[in-house]
Structures are given as structure tokens and as C-alpha cells.
């Protein structure tokens, strides 16, 4: 039975690639209005989980509900997704990408987008192809955060960017996050992101091995989430 307080419900989710299990009977519920960190090393199943939530990868077994719906056209209109790669079309200018988001997402806020572009020092006439990795990441995040989505899903938003870009991206996430929305962020760079999380879930070999309120975990374990991460995966 679907709980209306949950934006995401995951039951017994399994994904296998041949004999390899990427997700192993994973269970997780995410409450509306929370920022949740899915933490785990490379290859732990974070991206696989995210792709299933977004509807671009099919599970082998189990059930996923986003706001009560199975991933599909309906959920894609309420989820704002930042993949872990440059997903914009190569021929695009920044302007084209903004137009596309405006055309397809009714929740796109152009004013917010302009503010973010200014903050990220991006110009509308820049070509996507000519941007550096950090700049592309900033543009992708600008587009994703400019939506007033019910659920934001950010897959490794600060991986592979320089410290200056990283701080800018973190500031953008903190300052532009919609209060009534929910957010899922995957990362293995916990130190830089832990202040953002309300809840955290540690994932290893396709299973959630520990989850809970970030503040409570700090109190119970007498350590920062980053130190807890190192203790678990170190």
C-alpha cells in the first residue's frame, strides 16, 4: 500500500547483469521534503538505483513508486534528474538547452535559470561542446535546479570538478533547493556534501546497510557522516 508521505518507495528491488547482482533486494522509503544522501563507493549500485528511479533502466525484480506511480512519462514530468555525465545534445548552445527545458517542463522557472546562469558565470550563447567539464556540470545543474520539481535526483554532482566549481555547485544546491521538494543525491565525496543531508543511506554491494537521520547518526555514533563512511567502507 502506497504511503502518501513518501515521495519514493522501493521494495525488494533487484537488478542483475547476468550473474552479477547490482542491486540485491534493496528496500528504501524517502519521505517528502527530505534531502537524502545515497552514499557508497564506486560500483556499490548508486547509479543503477538512480537510473531505475528515473525510468531509464529496468529492474529485474521488485517495485519502485515515485509519488505513487511506477517510473514512466508521468514521473518524468515531476522528477528533475542530473545524470553523472554530459547529457545535453552536442549541437546545442546554452540557449537551446534552456529552450528545451522550457518546452518540456511546465515547472521550469526562467528567472531562476537566469540567476543561476549569472551565479555560474555562464552565457546563453556559449556552445555546450566548447565548455570545460566543470562548466558543463554547472550548466547541467543550472537546468536541473531551475525546475520547481517534486523530486530532484542528482547523481554524483561534484565528481571530477575542481574545488572552486565544487563549492559553487554546493552553494547552488543549498540556495536553490525548493523547500517543499525532495532531493536524492548520490556521492562518494561525503565530506563536502554531508551538511546538506537530512537523511543518509549507505549502500554496499547493492544493499542498504545503514540508513537514518543524519543528525541522529552523528549523535549515536559520535562522529561525522564522513568518518562513519570511512569506517564502513575504509
Amino acid at each position, binding site marked *: 500500500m502506497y504511503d502518501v508521505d513518501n515521495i519514493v518507495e522501493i521494495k525488494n528491488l533487484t537488478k542483475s547483469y547476468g550473474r552479477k547482482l547490482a542491486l540485491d533486494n534493496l528496500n528504501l522509503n524517502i519521505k517528502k521534503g527530505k534531502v537524502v544522501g545515497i552514499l557508497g563507493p564506486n560500483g556499490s549500485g548508486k547509479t543503477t538505483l538512480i537510473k531505475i528511479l528515473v525510468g531509464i533502466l*529496468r529492474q529485474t525484480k521488485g517495485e519502485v513508486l515515485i509519488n505513487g506511480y511506477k517510473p514512466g512519462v508521468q514521473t518524468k514530468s515531476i522528477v528533475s534528474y542530473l545524470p553523472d555525465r554530459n547529457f545535453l*545534445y552536442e549541437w546545442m548552445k546554452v540557449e537551446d538547452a534552456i529552450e528545451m527545458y522550457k518546452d518540456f517542463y511546465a515547472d521550469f522557472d526562467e528567472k531562476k535559470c537566469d540567476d543561476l546562469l549569472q551565479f555560474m558565470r555562464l552565457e546563453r550563447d556559449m556552445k555546450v561542446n566548447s565548455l570545460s567539464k566543470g562548466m558543463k556540470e554547472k550548466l547541467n545543474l543550472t537546468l536541473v535546479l531551475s525546475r520547481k520539481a517534486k523530486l530532484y535526483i542528482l547523481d554524483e554532482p561534484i565528481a571530477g570538478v575542481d574545488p572552486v566549481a565544487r563549492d559553487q555547485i554546493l552553494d547552488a544546491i543549498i540556495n536553490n533547493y525548493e523547500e517543499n521538494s525532495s532531493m536524492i543525491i548520490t556521492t562518494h565525496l561525503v565530506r563536502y556534501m554531508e551538511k546538506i543531508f537530512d537523511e543518509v543511506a549507505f549502500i554496499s554491494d547493492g544493499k542498504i546497510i545503514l540508513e537514518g537521520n543524519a543528525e541522529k547518526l552523528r549523535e549515536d555514533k559520535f562522529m561525522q557522516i564522513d568518518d562513519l563512511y570511512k569506517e564502513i567502507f575504509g
Partner: protein
Amino acid sequence: MLKYMKYEIKGTYRFMLAIILTVIGASTGLQVYGNKIFVADSYVGPNPTGILFLAIMGFLIFGAFISALFYIIGSFRKELYEDRGYLTFSLPLTGKQILGSKTLIALMWAALLIIISLVYNFILAIALHGGVVFSELFEAIRYLFRFKVDNVIITIILASIFSGITTLLLIYFSIALSRVTIKNKKIGGMWFIIFLVLNSIISFLTLMAVEAFPFYLDLSNFNIIRASELTNYMGYNMGLIMSTGSSTGMIITSDKNIVLNIGSALFSIITAIGIFFGTSYLIERKIDL
């Protein structure tokens, strides 16, 4: 869907424009030089350099058409194999909308390329051979538009368009099926083998449909004729038999009667619809990025 088509056009127009310009340029080269090897209506013949020039122009035109075809195919393939798929498949669009947009834009480019090439070459031929007299040129254009379009031409054009759409959809289906079944991205050319196999199966089944349902429809009066009565019905006027791809089972006589095998026509239509829905299903529900 229209919104997605807008971005399909934006993403492809530069390349297709270059293709159209290449065809126009090479056609001009062919015709202008071709015109020079005729002096006072007698054949002079090209010199070796001329032959090389004509060959290059010919290859340019052929290459441009082939490039356009592969570009159209590649544009679909990229969605399934490259990072851009993360954007396309996270848009709130159904598989049918994505596939429909891609197919319509591909057809639009194919039609534009063919029409521009034919009309340009026709006008250029009139201009070169008839002398560059603009009044004659306009007369020629008027003649082109007054050209009597009879049922046979319309049928052949419609059958070719239908055949083109079916082939394109089958290519898309083969690419999607190859992506779903063969996870190894390095084996990218497998779709072509799947396409050849499926195409053979469909052609075979179309022939089976002709045999299984041996009734023909006369498109001029909608009479239904048994296959056994076909020779008597048509007399000795069976001129042209269309037997390619999805048009199998269409017979056009020299006195311009068109009879269509009902079984194969129905089978072809159902197959095309089936391929469309099958491909839509694969890209919406089965593709793993």
C-alpha cells in the same frame, strides 16, 4: 511531439543542408560539363580529365544520398548508444512520440532531398539545353506543375513512400532490438544482420500472404478478383509487376489498371503498424541506458 520534432530539426538541419548543397553543386558540375561534351547536338566526348570529373561528381551525389541515409539511421542509434539518450529518455515523452518524431523528420528530409534534387536538375537541364531564356524556364516550371499526375504515378509514389516508411521503421526496430538483446555496446553493427534477417522473413511472409489470400482488389472500380481469374480479367495487358518489399502483390497493367493483392496489402499494413508499436515498446520499456 511537435516540440521534440523542433529539436530534431534543429539538431539535423546543418548536416542535411550541407548534403542538399553538395547534391546541387555536384549536379551543376555534371550538367554543365555534360552539356559541353555535346557540340551542336553531336557527341564530342569527354577527355580523361573530364571522365574523372564526371565520375567524382557522380560519386559525390551518390555519397551524399548514402551519407544522408546513414545520418538518419545514426541519429536514432545515438539515442540508444550515446550519452544524449539520458536527455531524450528522461523527457516526459512516450516511446511512440519519440519514434514518431524521428520517423517524420527522417521522411521530411528524405522528401526534401529528393524533391530539391529532381526539381533543380530538371530546371538546370531546361536552362542549359534550352538556352538560358527565363521565359522558357518559367514555361518549363509551369509544364512541370501541369504534368499530368495519373493514378499509376500516385500509386507508385504512395507505394514507395509506404515502402520507405516500413524499411526505416524496420531499421529502427533492428537497432532497438540489437540494443536490448546484445548488451555489449562494441558489437554495434549487429542491427544490420537483424535487419537483413527480419526483412527476409517479412518478404517471405508477404509472399505467403499472397498465396494464403488469393484475392485482388481493382483500385479503379473496387472489384474483387480471384487469383485464378486474374489473367482473364486483365487480358494480355499485364505490363508492370511491382514486386519490391511491401508493394509485393501489386500489379499495374499497361492500360493503367491497378490491382492489389488484399492479403499482402493487409499484411504489409499490419506489419508496419506492428513494427512501429514494437519499436516504441522497446525504447520506452526495455532499453537500459
